[in-house]
């Protein structure tokens, strides 16, 4: 479990980092917290010629909170989110979800950008990005582009990032104070990747009817997904046990999770329904 030989660079600007990536024709890789990449090197599942470390790009480490929402720099670590008291108000769903990521040591290094670029279908941050209609800011040789989360995640551990592109920021739209929400996941042990998880939020109109329901699920497809059919069950209705049961049943029907050594797909589908039901109850309490 020794990594193969690689070269290492730690550029001082994003532009420099991009040109280093571009110079290697796909044989260079960004390293951020290293918590996913280093194990892959040790297992020799990846063997890039060059690692481009983002550690000197201090500007990417900021959490900016404004009228238009929360902007997470790519170098923001889980522990930064955890210790930022503003987020309890500015984005409670994010704060709650990130509590479930990994273990203490890993939270001290793992980053938002690394997680989103790695695009593990069970990871919390991609799930939140998907649920909240996040906008990804991406810098490459061709310039800067902004992409919606829904287009960014393209498959298992796959994104729309080009070989010479760096994700610099994840923008979560503004969070109204009265918004209802819940995040629930189930993992075998504390800190493990979830068997499945559900993030949800919605607003209530003057008649206490649900509007703008967003339900995201992790661990049940090849990428984080939105449960649009279950959202449709909720929208325009008042919360009730019957509605919760209907939305959960719809969620279970609308997905077809793959089976793996940890669980059959049917279990994950049922789990999403259970978590959604519990989450909706919690959100209404």
């Amino acid at each position, binding site marked *: *479990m*020794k*990594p193969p030989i690689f070269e290492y660079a730690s550029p001082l600007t994003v532009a420099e980092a991009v040109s280093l990536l571009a110079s290697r024709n796909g044989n260079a890789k960004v390293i951020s917290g290293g918590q996913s990449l280093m194990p892959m090197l040790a297992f020799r599942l990846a063997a890039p010629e060059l690692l481009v470390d983002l550690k000197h790009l201090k500007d990417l480490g900021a959490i900016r909170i404004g009228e238009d929402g929360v902007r997470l720099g790519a170098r923001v670590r889980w522990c930064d989110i955890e210790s930022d008291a503003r987020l309890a108000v500015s984005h409670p769903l994010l704060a709650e979800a990130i509590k479930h990521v990994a273990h203490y040591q890993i939270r001290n290094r793992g980053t938002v950008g690394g997680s989103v670029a790695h695009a593990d279908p069970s990871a919390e941050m991609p799930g939140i990005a998907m649920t909240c209609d996040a906008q990804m800011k991406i810098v490459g040789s061709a310039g800067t582009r902004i992409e919606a989360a829904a287009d960014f995640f393209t498959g298992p551990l796959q994104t729309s990032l080009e070989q010479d592109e760096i994700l610099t920021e994840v923008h979560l739209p503004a969070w109204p104070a009265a918004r209802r929400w819940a995040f629930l996941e*189930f993992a075998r042990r*504390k800190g493990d990747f979830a068997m499945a998880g559900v993030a949800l939020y919605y607003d209530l109109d003057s008649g206490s009817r649900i509007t703008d329901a967003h339900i995201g699920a992790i661990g049940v497809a090849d990428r984080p997904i939105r449960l649009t059919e279950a959202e449709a069950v909720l929208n325009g209705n008042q919360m009730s046990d019957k509605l919760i049961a209907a939305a959960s049943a719809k969620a279970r029907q609308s997905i077809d999770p793959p089976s793996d050594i*940890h669980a059959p797909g049917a279990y994950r589908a049922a789990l999403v329904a259970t978590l959604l039901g519990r989450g909706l109850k919690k959100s209404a309490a």
Partner: protein
Amino acid sequence: MKVFNSYIGRPMERVEDLRMVRGRGTYVADVNRPNQLYAVILRSSTAHGIIKSIDSSEALALAGVHHVLTAKDLGNEVPLIPLRLQPLPQLEPFHQPVLADKKVRYVGEPIAVVIAESAAIAEDALERIALEIDPLPAVATRAQAEAKRSVLFEGHGSNVAITWKAFRGDADEAFKTADYVRRETFRVQRHAAMFMEPRGFVAEWDEAAGKLTVWGAAKTAWYNRRTLAAQLGLELEAVDLIEVDVGGGFGSRGEFYPEDYLIPAAARIVGRPVKWTEDRREHIMSANHARDVECDVEFAATRDGRFIGLRGQIWSDIGAYIRTNGSVGPRNVAQYMSGPYCMEHIDLKSSMLTTNKTPCGTYRGPGRYETDFIRERMIDLAAQDLKIDRVELRRRNLVADAQMPYTLASITPYDSSTELDSGDYHAVFDRCLKEFGWEERSKLRGQSIDGYYHGLAIGSFIEGGAAGPKEEVRLVLETDGALSVYMGSSSVGQGLETIMAQIAADAMEIPYEKITILHGSTSYVKDGYGAYHSRSTVMGGSAILLGAEKLKELIQQTAAQRLGCKSEEVVIDGEQASFGGNHIAFAGLSETPLEVEAAFFNKKYTWAYGTQAAHVAVDPGTGHVKVIDVMSVEDVGRMINPLTLHGQAIGSIVQGLGGAFLEHLVYDDEGQLLTGSFADYLMPTASDFPSIRSVTLELKPCPNNPLGAKGAGEGGLIPIGGLMANAVADALSHLNVQPMELPLSPPRIWQLVEEAEAARARA
């Protein structure tokens, strides 16, 4: 002040700990020799196949690579790993060669060893070895083994290596007339000991002296030394195996593995010290697996709940070869199925199946964990069928004090008759109920609180210990009055140094601080057996008692000359020898150290025993089981150190819980191991099982050794699988959920709930 008999039984802190917590432990990875090279092993990624060719030329061309060792380099016959225990001739065809020779039989089997300037270079070289293997169909399940999808050892003609038979009374007759018979199938998943520090060796060959030194031995250094010396054609004295600190063993570390030969052989071939440090992925695929058992058994009882008999067939999947102790689990699962209960009629067969998976060996509580799961489940099922309270049903059948010694089932083809030596099983059972608060907690049974259903279970167990035939010690009273104790027992992290010092201090009536325990080199005493079968304390400790008697005699003789009296007139007391008002202190008694050797011989096992109760809560929506409380009460005859003993008990229980809920070595039908890292093989972590309690009693000392002690430390986990399954069944009794298979993973429990609900909907 006279310090008499004051250490045994006291919670002495471990003398080892200060060194360890200060980072001064020396593990094998810390051992470095000048000029050393590094070995990395090429392992098969094919489960079953014929090796067509191995071409190392590109690997050898890489700068820093010194040698690539393959079976061809080992002469005409590749050395085989012999059986340390139950060395039956009929098992010889299944012995493992130290390097795959012509055929590979499991993923992880060593094929070549690369020796290079660094481990990283050696790993680079691995990728350059051109290996051609013609795959054969793999055997990964019992069905495939029985259908002979392949036969692993063609000469044998079948995948059943041998079948153990445990018998007692006349089972067929008894089953004919029994009031109650229930037949069930059970399954325990393959899992294994995952000690914190993986294995490793540093080997050095001194050409001029003709001497081989190997660091990294553990558990059974003497046996391994004999094996290695024979394989390398060296005299015993030319080989020294050295034990350093180890990060856990649990039965798996220290057995003779291919690397035990390969690393020393490599050092000899390249003429430089060679170091190998196992990584976790290697460990998972190469160190012994365990517990892979299926069975189809029948249980008979009378209407009023007297157990009558056990009958049936067990299949123990031993993997691709039989290694050193590979028979122990398959034998135990049959011989000890009756556990601490009276069972007059037994007819159990346990067939060892060869499959294309990593070979199996012992893992803490070998065979017992599996068989207790089967038996305790059967008892709860019978209680339900017979409508007898399960506490009462167990009480009616525990072996009574008056029945001791109680003979367990006989076993063939390798006789190992044994009898339960002593115990008040009922007293321990009742104490457990009390400590646990069974009555009070029973109110919660079947209740749902915050979505979790609560359930309880109770189960009793026996733990064999103290395997013979002997253990040796050498006691040296140094000229300054300090005592050195050289031992053949070995330490696998169980606090050996502390416990032996306690025993020696009491036996010699000298302060604990003046005692040094020396173990860990095959040159310390002539012969040693090591640390397995919960034997070190009983065997090594008893040898110390015998040695102390001899040393006292020698002190008397030595002092008598100076005191001018007969030796039997010399009184030994408070670190001095006295006669008629004259005293000679141990310090300065003799100009040369006084030295004695002693050996304790014993072939009778000790049988510690206990009862455990558990309280769980189950979330039927996720399948999650919260372990709310585990209470363990055991009698170990004589407790040397409650602190280390409770540490062992609790650690063992956590391991048992790992096996009950989390740990699973999963293979696909082609023999590929799918759980190759700790991301997929789930170990219990610190926050998973917070509430575990252990109480130790000293009701019945062991009649077969001078200490009165019984082997302990494996016990905790033995009943856990059965206990947890029974507790889950109790929690979900409204659905009649009956787990018959471990682990109790969330998907499995969810599945059982779904099936039960579907059945209820149909009804």
